[in-house]
């Protein structure tokens, strides 16, 4: 059995903004098909890390490789393999759903069949002629996700894609992502405040705070590691959920 090459390699990366050290020596490796949840309280450094992976921020120190290549000199090539969806993405209000998808499809030189396929995939068939401004929050996020998937990305970066959505709209997004996971080799980094979302969608969980990775692994590994330590401290209550673990590690709940 051959081990696939990593799609993302983050090596000892540092990043500061004026007096704030946003990222302090992070190492992270992601393989094809892996879905990774990046969890951390506000200001932990998640967004900065994602922006560096996305290539819009440069690390002060360290190295980031996408498919074995750095951003410098390879921007055009790497932009073609990345899909991105941001929290509360707002597109051009007075374009229809189809016109919006078509606009982004032109950036990747994709044809009409892919546009229709994507609209169908995210369940916006009935809304294809509706202006973006008239879509609900959930429909708008589905449109954003569809656009992120237009180019069949090797790497999908989702920054809090379900924040502010009602439970039904959130489940619709999860359903699309689960299908993606079953059918493709796309790797995904998801930043989220919803523990249930991380547990449901991602096999790898990375807990980050104050610019550093505190723990990473599968949910089972993380919980069993911590509970193993309990034998040394019998007074502590056993950890049952990701939220328990998160509070233990950061001293804050996931929503803070």
């Amino acid at each position, binding site marked *: 059995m051959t081990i696939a090459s990593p799609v993302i390699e983050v090596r000892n990366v540092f990043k500061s903004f004026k007096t704030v050290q946003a990222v302090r020596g992070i190492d992270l490796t992601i393989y094809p098909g892996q879905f990774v949840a990046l969890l951390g309280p506000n200001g932990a450094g998640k967004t900065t890390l994602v*922006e560096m992976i*996305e290539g*819009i921020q440069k690390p002060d120190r360290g190295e980031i490789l996408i498919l074995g290549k750095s951003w410098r000199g390879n921007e*055009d090539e790497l*932009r*073609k393999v*990345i899909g*991105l969806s*941001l929290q*509360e*993405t*707002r*597109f*051009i*209000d*007075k*374009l229809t759903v189809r*016109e919006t998808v*078509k*606009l*982004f499809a*032109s*950036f*990747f*030189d994709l044809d009409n069949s892919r546009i229709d396929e994507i609209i169908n995939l995210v369940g916006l068939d009935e809304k294809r002629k509706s*202006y973006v401004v008239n879509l609900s929050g959930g429909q708008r996020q589905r449109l*954003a996700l569809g*656009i992120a998937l237009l*180019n069949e990305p090797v790497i999908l970066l989702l920054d809090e894609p379900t924040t502010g959505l009602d439970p039904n709209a959130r489940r619709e997004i999860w359903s699309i992502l689960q299908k993606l996971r079953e059918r493709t080799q796309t790797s995904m980094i998801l930043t989220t405040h919803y523990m249930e979302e991380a547990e449901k969608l991602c096999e790898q969980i990375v807990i980050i705070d104050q610019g550093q990775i505190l723990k990473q692994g599968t949910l089972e590994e993380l919980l069993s590691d911590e509970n193993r330590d309990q034998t040394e401290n019998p007074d502590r209550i056993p950890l049952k959920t990701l939220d328990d673990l998160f509070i233990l590690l950061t001293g804050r709940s996931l929503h803070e």
Partner: protein
Amino acid sequence: MNSPIRYRQLIQLILAHLRQIIREPGVLFWGIIFPILMSLGLGFAFTKKADVYRDVAWVKEQPARADSSGSALEIFLKDHQIKRSSDKDGDICYRITLPDDKLGNTTYTVRVMEWKKAMVLLKRGNITIILDEKNGRLEYHFDPMNPDAQLIYLKLSGLFTNPALLQRPSNPDIRPMTITGTRYIDFLVPGLIAMGVMMSIMWGVSYEIIDNRAKKLLRRMVATPMKKSYYLIALITVRIGMNFIESGLLFLFTWIVFGIQVQGSVPALITIFMAGNIAFAGIAIFMSSHTAKTEIGNGLINLVSMPMMVLSGIFFSYHNFPEWSTSIIRAFPLTMLADGVRSVFIEGAGFTEIAIPSLIMAGTGTIFFIAGLKIFKWH
């Protein structure tokens, strides 16, 4: 994708910006209908002869003796059989009409009142002049800086010394100028075209970029293989195209209604118009290069456009400003554009006259565009 020019990207970006504009009724109103209404309003106000009505307060002197023949003004009114009536407040008043078939009739309603009430009306702007009497002698109280009050003073004092004016409907000394190019509307329309270009580009390009940055749409777009320059080229192209349409419609309308004509070279007009568009496009990119806050964007756009709108001679000539300031005002891109368009419209100018301002404006736009791109924030 092999072609260095990614036509599909550019076409789709142009279509997206165009659709956004034409689907927004407000944009069409402010871009097309509003300038036409403004030209219509100002054009009629300044080109059609209109009657003028002004109220004047008269603080009447109490007669010293019962058999007194009255004050100078009272004698004038009696001599010329100007009837006493009452105004809307029930005060005694006299209506004096100066007939004029060239300038339009002027009617002064001389309202009798006490000093205190006259002062209140003056402060409110209902009147601009108070007539008072001291020992039968008429005194005029008004702000000497107020041109309307000055005019009333000159006309009334002239009338009281030369009552024959009441009977002279036609002044043979006045020869009205109606030749195309010498009317106020001929001065106004080129100014409106120039102002339209500035406002359309400053709001349509600057504000659009800042708003898209605030919405994170710019960040979302540059995460794709979209060529960044195409976004700006498409935005500017659509705006300039819309400016041609908006200005063309304004010209067409004023040509039909007021008979406006282009007396100079049309290619020269297109050249200076394009140069003005380039100047403002460059400035707009520079102004919107950094901020992601629409409130700051509003301030920046107003900071650039408001002084020019007031000073650049859009509605009235800037030559009335102090002499030291006119050389500064002439350097403003809006002044150059308005003066250039005006010179082609009403002075019959050609390429020779507009070459230098066109080069300066295009150069200004290019410098600002390059500087803006250097500091441009896409996210």
